[in-house]
C-alpha cells in the first residue's frame, strides 16, 4: 500500500484552518490584556445598545442651594428620570468629598446630599447611609465637618461611613477591566448596598477630562487596602478603572450637582462656574454624557465616556433629556491643563 496523498482539496482546507488559527492568534495578541473573547463581548454589547431603548436623563435648571426648593426640584427630577423603586432597599449615597480647600467648590454641596436623603426617605428606603473615602484625606471627618455635610446628616439622623476604613471585602472584578486582578476589595457598605447613588459634582479633571458620576466612584476604593490616593486605579489605567468599578459594584444611579460647577484645573484647583443645573438619571453613563455636553465636551473627547459607549457599559447613544433644555444650558467650560 502506498503512502496517503494530500489531495488539492485537503491542502486548501489545511490552508484555510491555518489562516483562521493564525488570524485568531493575531487577534488574541492584539486585544491583550483583555483578550479576544472579552473584546468581542464589549463590541457586541456596544452594538446591541444601538438598538435598545433610550436612557432618560432629567435636567433641572436655574437652581440654587436653597434646601426646600432643591428638595422639591429633586423630587420632580427623580420622577421625570424614572429612577428605580427604593422602597425597602439599603441605599448608599456617595458624594464627592475628595478634599476640603476653603472657598473652592470641590465637593458635592451638602444641600444636594440633604435633598437626595429626603427623596430617598420619602420613597421608603429602608436603610440610608452616606459614605465616601477621600483620596487626599487620611481622615474624612474634617472634610465632612468643614463642608457642612456633618450638620446636614445630623439633622436627618443619617450616619456617615468613611469608606477608606469600612471593613473591605473581596468581590469579583467583573467585565474584564482589571486584567490580572480577579478580585477587588470594596467597603462593606458598598458590597451590601442594594443601590448606590453617585452624588457627583460637575467638574473638569486634569487626568480624566471631566469628573462626573462614574469617576466619582473612585472614592469607594478603600485606602486601607490600596493606599492614598488610590494609586492602583492609575496603575491599572483611569479608563478601565472607572468602567471596571462601575461594573463590579451594585446598581448605581446618578445625581450631579452642577449648581456651582468647576472649570479649568479641576478637580482641586479649578474656578467656580455658577451654572444652576442638576442632573438625575438611572444610567450613569447616559447622565455623564449629558453632563459632559453641558460643559461643552463631546463624549468622544473624554476617553472613559468614549470607551464606555463603545463597550456598552451603559446607554450612551440614545439619551432622552427631560425637563430643561440641554441646548439652552450648555456652556463651554475652560479645559483642564495637560
Amino acid at each position, binding site marked *: 500500500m502506498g503512502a496517503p496523498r494530500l489531495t488539492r482539496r485537503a491542502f486548501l482546507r489545511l490552508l484555510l484552518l491555518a489562516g483562521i488559527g493564525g488570524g485568531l492568534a493575531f487577534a488574541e495578541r492584539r486585544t491583550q490584556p483583555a483578550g479576544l473573547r472579552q473584546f468581542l463581548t464589549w463590541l457586541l454589547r456596544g452594538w446591541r445598545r444601538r438598538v435598545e431603548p433610550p436612557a432618560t436623563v432629567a435636567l433641572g435648571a436655574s437652581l440654587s442651594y436653597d434646601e426646600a426648593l432643591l428638595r422639591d426640584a429633586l423630587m420632580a427630577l427623580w420622577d421625570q428620570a424614572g429612577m428605580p423603586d427604593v422602597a425597602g432597599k439599603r441605599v448608599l449615597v456617595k458624594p464627592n468629598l475628595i478634599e476640603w*480647600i476653603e472657598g473652592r467648590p470641590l465637593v458635592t454641596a451638602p444641600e444636594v446630599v440633604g435633598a437626595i436623603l429626603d427623596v430617598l426617605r420619602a420613597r421608603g428606603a429602608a436603610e440610608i447611609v452616606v459614605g465616601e473615602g477621600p483620596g*487626599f*484625606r*487620611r*481622615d474624612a*471627618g*474634617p472634610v465632612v*465637618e468643614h463642608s457642612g455635610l456633618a450638620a446636614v446628616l445630623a439633622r436627618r439622623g443619617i450616619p456617615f461611613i468613611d469608606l477608606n*476604613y469600612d*471593613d*473591605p471585602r*473581596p468581590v469579583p472584578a467583573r467585565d474584564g477591566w482589571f486584567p490580572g486582578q480577579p478580585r477587588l*476589595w470594596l467597603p462593606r457598605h458598598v458590597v451590601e448596598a442594594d443601590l448606590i447613588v453617585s452624588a457627583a459634582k460637575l467638574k473638569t479633571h*486634569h487626568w480624566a477630562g471631566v469628573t462626573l458620576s462614574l469617576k466619582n466612584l473612585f472614592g469607594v476604593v478603600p485606602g*486601607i*487596602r*490600596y*493606599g*492614598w*490616593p488610590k*494609586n*492602583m486605579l492609575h*496603575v491599572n489605567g483611569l479608563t478601565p478603572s472607572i468602567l471596571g468599578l462601575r461594573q463590579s459594584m451594585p446598581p448605581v444611579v446618578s445625581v450631579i450637582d452642577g449648581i456651582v460647577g468647576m472649570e479649568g*484645573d479641576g478637580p*482641586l*484647583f479649578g474656578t467656580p462656574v455658577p451654572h444652576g443645573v442638576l442632573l438625575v438619571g438611572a444610567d450613569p453613563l447616559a447622565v455623564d454624557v449629558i453632563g459632559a455636553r453641558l460643559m461643552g465636551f463631546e463624549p468622544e473627547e473624554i476617553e472613559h465616556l468614549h470607551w464606555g459607549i463603545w463597550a456598552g457599559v451603559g446607554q450612551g447613544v440614545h439619551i432622552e433629556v427631560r425637563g430643561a433644555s440641554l441646548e439652552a444650558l450648555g456652556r463651554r467650560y475652560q479645559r*483642564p*491643563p*495637560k
Partner: protein
Amino acid sequence: MGMPGEPSARNARAFLTRSQNPDGGWGYRPGSPSATEPTGAALVALGPDPEAAPAVERARRWLEAAQRPDGGWGLSREDPESHWMTAWGILGLARLNPHAPEVARGVRWLIELPVIRIEAAELTAEVSRTLRIDPRLRGWPWRPGEASWVEPTALALLALDAASVVETHRDRIAEAVGYLVDRRCVGGGWNFGNPFMLGANLPPRPHPTAWALLALRILSPQAIRPEDVTALRAEMYRDGGAMALALGQLALTAIGIEEPEARERLQRQQAPDGSWESSPYVTALSALALNGGWPWAPRG
C-alpha cells in the same frame, strides 16, 4: 506624680484592652474584623506594659499568624497580598522583640519589594516637568510594583529602625530618605506624594507630614527644616481631627517641641469610653501622643 496625659492614656489603654477582638487583633472599629494596621498600632501603644500583658500576647500571636508566607502582611489574615501594612506588622512585633524571626522575614520582604523607578532620560524629564520630582529615587509604595508615596515610605523607614537594621540596609535607607527630601512641598511639609502637579503646587497635609518628620527625626534629623514644622502646626490645627492632632503631637514631641495646645485639644476629643472616635487605631496613636511619644528602639 504622673505625666499630664496619664489619666487619658490610662483610659485609652483600657479602651484598647476592651476593644480587642477574641482572635487577638483589633479592627478599625470595635467588633470589626481584625486588621494589621490597628493591631500593629495597638501593640506599639501598649508595648511591654505588664498590666496589658495578656492582651499584648494575644495580639503578638495574631500578627504572627497573619504574616504571609512571603514574609509580608496584608490588610487581614484573609488578604492574599502583602503590601504597605507589612511596616505595621514589623512595628508591632519589633516593639516586643526587634530580633524575632518574624521581624527579620518582614524586613526581607520590605527590602526586596519591587518599586517603580524611572530612569530613562526622556521619561525622567517629562515626569520632572509634570510633577517636579526626581523619579529615579525609590521610597516605598502602598502595593508591590507601584510608585512610591510618602506615608508608606516613612512607615517602612520607621519599621526598619524599629527592627534595628538601619546599618545593614544603609544604602536603601539613604535613597528613601532622599525620596522624602525630594518630595517636600514648596514652603515645607509633605503632600501624599509629589509636591506639584500640572502647574500647581500641592499643599502639605498633616498625616504624611507627621510621618515624614518622624522618619527623618531618627534617620536624618539635619534634613528637617523649620518650615516643615510650621507647615505641620498649621495643617494639624486646620484639619482638627484626632488622627491629625495625635500624629502632629507625636512628630513635634520627637523633634523636641512642646505643643500644649495640641495636647489639650486631643484630650478634649477623648470620648467617655476612653477612645478617640471609637477607633482603636486613632486611640493607639493618641495614647502614644499623650504618654511619652513614639517608642524609639534603643540605639547602639
